């Protein structure tokens, strides 16, 4: 008898897209999510929140990134604020957008629990920049439409043992 197959990058991305759909509808009150494009390269020049998911099988970061003004819109939507309300201060934007990704990661963990029950979630960080691909880092990105907003859901998986131990990757200013 064999156990569950290890999760592929596509498994992670599919679960993240499904989690984004759930959060878009239940937490943001949007109609849903439309997948516009799948890519294996991280986007450039977008801002968003990243959260580490570590398990016995994998070291992954999940992220949701968008143009900074669209991050504002999504953050304000989470807080039930409208376009007439002033922009969120940077710390409040990071906090609100981080919470969106925190809920995404919790949903993703639930969706993949039968494949990997050892997942542990980190805490979100907000980065206004982009990821530099490095040896051992695999990425999968889904360009999405959330309501009227384009955003990108991203999986970054580190296979290098040292990097896995550190759970780190390099971000550079956008």
């Amino acid at each position, binding site marked *: 008898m064999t156990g569950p197959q290890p999760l592929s990058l596509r498994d992670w991305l599919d679960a993240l897209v499904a989690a984004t759909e759930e959060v878009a509808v239940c937490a943001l009150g949007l109609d849903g999510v439309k997948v516009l494009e799948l890519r294996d390269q991280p986007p450039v020049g977008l801002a968003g929140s990243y959260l580490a998911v570590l398990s016995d099988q994998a070291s992954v970061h999940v992220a949701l990134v968008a143009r900074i003004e669209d991050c504002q819109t999504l953050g304000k939507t*989470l807080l039930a604020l409208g376009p007439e309300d002033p922009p969120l201060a940077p710390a409040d934007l990071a906090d609100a957008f981080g919470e969106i990704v925190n809920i995404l990661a919790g949903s993703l963990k639930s969706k993949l629990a039968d494949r990997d029950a050892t997942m542990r979630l980190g*805490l979100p960080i907000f980065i206004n920049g982009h990821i530099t691909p490095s040896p051992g880092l695999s990425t999968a990105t889904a360009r999405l439409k959330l309501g009227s907003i384009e955003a990108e859901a991203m999986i970054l998986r580190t296979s290098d043992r040292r990097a896995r131990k550190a759970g780190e990757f390099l971000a550079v200013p956008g």
Partner: protein
Amino acid sequence: MRILIVDDSKAMRAIVMRTLRQAGYGDHKVEEAGNGVEALKAIRASAPDLVLCDWNMPEMNGLELLQAIRAERAPVKFGFVTSEGSPEMRKTAKESGALFLIAKPFTVDGFRAALDPVIS
């Protein structure tokens, strides 16, 4: 009733407060704490009737807070409001003395279902 909301996200504390109002609990006095350490200080200073607590937080997480409260035998009702709701976490929460676990994203009805038996 005095309710203490514990979450490291200011945004989520605001959302929990808004949901409490929408669920019909707007008359209760609500206080906030940003992590388990702050919450433990607040509970020692003036015990609230109910704690609504995130699980995954810096400094002291929600489970550690619950264990500290129970170790001190503080008579406070405790429930989790967290992004993770796996069966294992629900089991751990219950065994540690939590009355409920509300998983994010949550609904007003979900809040009522969890809180009505506790608050009434």
